């Protein structure tokens, strides 16, 4: 097997210039265009838990392709006129974004947002014939939430990994930049294996509250109680779980302290964020980027997430609510990076368990599938285009594992993630140790970041 993915030809001509959104201040514009004053980069992972049905996120608009889509999707088909048109040069045909993603359509047109099509977890390239004959290695327990979530986060498609690819990326970066006092990787959505490295350990930060202990007022009694609490965390009980619990709490107190001091050193960002689950998380990430210098960080990786994409039923309504949350939150975050003058230095990207069956399931939803489309956003992104190969939306067609429309990915998560890690600063020679299967794919990196 040669190349499993085929990049569309990228056309060099520009689409019509699109004006900046009105709320991008002149100040922000100047900052965005200024050369970065510092060597800083951040990656922001937005994990859409549950398995996002990208078949309804990016829809072909040409009449033949839309007709085929509408025929199979039936009641799940989005009306053609409701889709938000985009014209990716490499595709040479119009596509439509879900009607609740206008902010992302705008970012796409500003060339700050790209779509990576039919990407998924793979051991190596696999064809339908190989899949049906069970003759090629495929990720273990396909179509299972827990397994595919772990595979997206670890880049290990079979077996158990106790580290994630962000954590391993941080390992490599800290080998270059040194170990910072505040963790390189931060989750604002609880623990996730994505963040765990071999030598690096993430911080988790709540999007809502400060991470400081309450009830201490600086009196002698209070100080004595605090030092006793700290002392108790150092005792070796000989029991693994107690030790692990103490380690987490000790880090919490240390990181909470560092963060509180850093946050006190800056004035609040002016960019408004929606008060949604994802909006609050991305707002917190923006603050953590804002205080990068105070925390002594030149590289940061963030994890945030939104639940609810497991749309087995009533998908049209669920998607409407979910995308109405995703798009404004992502756009607000992009605006915040402009306000901070770091837009070209911050790249955000989506991941999700898997795509969903092209064939609807009883109940107005879809079942678990495999390959899917993802968004990449930021000033460094070669936006306004599609990357990878758009699947053939044909049941039992060349990209289907069976007859329900489970697309076999034609681009690997490894290639997607390695592209991000390379941009972030992981040397090419280190990629195989971060992404063990990267050598199974003809091109280790893609071109959406130049």
């Amino acid at each position: 097997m040669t190349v499993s993915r085929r990049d569309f030809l990228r056309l060099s001509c520009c689409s019509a210039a699109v004006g900046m959104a009105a709320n991008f201040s002149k100040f922000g514009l100047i900052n965005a265009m200024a050369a970065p004053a510092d060597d800083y980069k951040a990656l922001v992972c937005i994990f859409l838990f549950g398995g996002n049905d990208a078949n309804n996120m990016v829809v072909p608009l040409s009449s033949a392709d839309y007709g085929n889509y509408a025929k199979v999707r039936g009641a799940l088909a989005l009306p053609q006129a409701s889709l938000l048109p985009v014209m990716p040069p490499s595709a040479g045909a119009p596509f439509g974004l879900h009607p609740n993603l206008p902010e992302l359509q705008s970012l796409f047109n500003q060339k700050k947002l790209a779509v990576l099509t039919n990407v998924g977890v793979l051991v190596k390239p696999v064809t339908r014939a190989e899949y049906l004959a069970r003759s090629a290695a495929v990720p273990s327990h396909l179509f299972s939430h827990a397994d595919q979530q772990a595979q997206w986060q670890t880049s290990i498609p079979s077996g158990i990994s106790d580290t994630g690819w962000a954590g391993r990326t941080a390992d490599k970066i800290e080998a270059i930049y040194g170990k910072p006092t505040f963790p390189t990787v931060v989750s604002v959505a609880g623990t996730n294996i994505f963040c765990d490295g071999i030598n690096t350990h993430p911080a988790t930060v709540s999007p809502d509250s400060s991470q400081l202990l309450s009830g201490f007022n600086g009196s002698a009694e209070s100080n004595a109680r605090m030092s006793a609490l700290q002392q108790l965390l150092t005792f070796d009980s000989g029991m693994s779980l107690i030790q692990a619990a103490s380690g987490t709490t000790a880090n919490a107190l240390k990181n909470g302290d560092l963060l509180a001091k850093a946050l006190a050193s800056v004035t609040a960002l002016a960019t408004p964020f929606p008060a949604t689950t994802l909006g609050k998380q991305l707002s917190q990430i923006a603050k953590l980027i804002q205080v990068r210098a105070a925390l002594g960080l030149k590289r940061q990786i963030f994890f945030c997430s939104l639940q609810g994409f497991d749309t087995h039923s009533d998908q049209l309504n669920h998607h409407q609510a979910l995308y109405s949350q995703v798009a404004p939150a992502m756009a607000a975050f992009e605006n915040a990076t402009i306000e901070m003058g770091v837009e070209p230095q911050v790249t955000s990207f989506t991941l999700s368990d898997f795509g969903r069956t092209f064939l609807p399931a009883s109940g107005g939803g879809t079942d678990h599938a495999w390959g899917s489309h993802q968004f990449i956003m930021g000033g460094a992104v070669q936006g306004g285009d599609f990357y990878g190969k758009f699947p053939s939306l044909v049941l039992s067609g060349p990209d289907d594992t069976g007859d329900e429309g489970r697309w076999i990915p034609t681009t690997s998560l490894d290639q997607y993630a390695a592209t991000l890690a390379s941009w972030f600063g992981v040397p090419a020679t280190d990629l195989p140790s971060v992404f063990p299967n990267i050598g199974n794919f003809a091109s280790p990196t893609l071109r959406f970041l130049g």
Partner: protein
Amino acid sequence: MRTATSNDHTWPKLLVSLTAGMLLIFQVGCGGGGNNFTPAAAPPAPPPISAPPPPPLPAATAARFLEQSTFGPTPELIAHVQTTGLQGYLDEQFAAPISTYDEPAAASPLAPVQARLVVNALNDPDQLRQRVAFALGEIMVISGDKINTADAFVPYLRVLHADAFGNFYDLLNDVTLSPAMGHYLDMVNNDKTTLDAKIGPNENYARELMQLFSIGVVRLNMDGTVQIGSDGNPIPTYDQDIVEGFAHVFTGWTYPTKPGATLAKHNPPYYSGPMVALQSNHETGSKLLLNGVTLPPGQPTDKDLSDALHNVFNHPNVGPFIGKQLIQHLVTSNPSPEYVKRVALVFNDNGAGVRGDLRAVITAILMDPEARRDSAGQSQPGDGHMKEPLLYMTSLLRGLHATSDGKAVVANSVAMEQNLLHPPSVFNYFPPNYQIPGTTTLGPEFKIWDNATSVARINFANSLVYGSLGSGTTVDLSSLVAQAGDPAKLLDQLDAEFTHSQMSTAMRGAILTTISGITDTRRRTQAAIYLIVTSSQYQVQH
């Protein structure tokens, strides 16, 4: 294989020999009821043992046992169990009246149910049933994110409570036919394939029933370890074709018919009683199940369901898969393979030929020698488990004799990543196989133990001890304060209540030094409680 149904619940008499190292002996009773399951090595029926008066049970043993079997020990319960003995307490618990939920009005909000769950856990006598039901509800998950009214959720809680000491088959059946589960995982109104519309049966319930509620994705040995195939990889228990087979089984069910209404293809949402079958909406073809079984075409809807659930129930994975998770919820995150195997064998046969007897399984879990390492120094490094947020909060409140309307616990559960009755997905708040980062140690509850939640838990303790949890929760420390004139005595008492009289010397020394420097007895008491209950030794039940 015929298996237990709701008609043959005749429980074997369980005898405990306290002399033979807490070894459980199941007396083979008359309750097999025609079950043809024969254990490979059934223990010989022992001669009846005339029970000697129980030796006085150490307080530490009673307290540890209560940490594993209740929502938190109290001084009174510790003293009580010292008199009943462990088996005596279990017998009491198996007979205790089931805690109740008010009959909910249609479309009424879930918040009062959340609070009631807490209030029941704090006060009601059926502690073990509630603890087991809560654990089962974290294995067979529904969530308020979708099941967001009391009239939908309460019947499901009642199923879990009613079946917690029953047979696992009945639990599987009742959960499967629960309209709340039906709605949560889309088995309700799951239509047979319509050829014109080309829409297939919904696969959601079929997949999660196998992956999460019964057998898991890989074949297990009886000791819970994973079976590895000749290719060096774990052997999957099912594939997509089997998922689709079960999805076809689970067609043709709709909401219960409202009183006075007529059965329709899609009854309107109604949550009282089990879902009902409509044969005309059921897939008629053959269905591929587990272990090479295929159901013949044309079977009635309920016959297909019963056959399919027995196919799942009799899969050899169920004992180790469910048994290990119950061990993890009650006793330890890292049971030895031998412990898992002992419990799985009891699942397979309670000693009377009955498979799936949860009362026997729970007894086996709690009376196992590995659970009963009660003496100081017996603990192994991987023992114990992180108290999940609800258990942490209720243990604290119960230990301090707090009175509460439950609301503060509900409110604080969110920041601890355990928003009560609202797990983020069917995968619960935490998975059973979660490894503590950087270790090979399992710690399911560590999935929600992080920088942010550890601080949230400590701050909850602060609010409780220093009196700012809100008007719905009050705690009276006066009896403890009355003893605080002697800091050592105060610590003895708190040690007995919160750390089963086994606080380490170092911990005790550090706290004693600190509180001895505080002269005000109330503030001294508060500081002592705060330092104990915020410690990792308390956060981790061990």
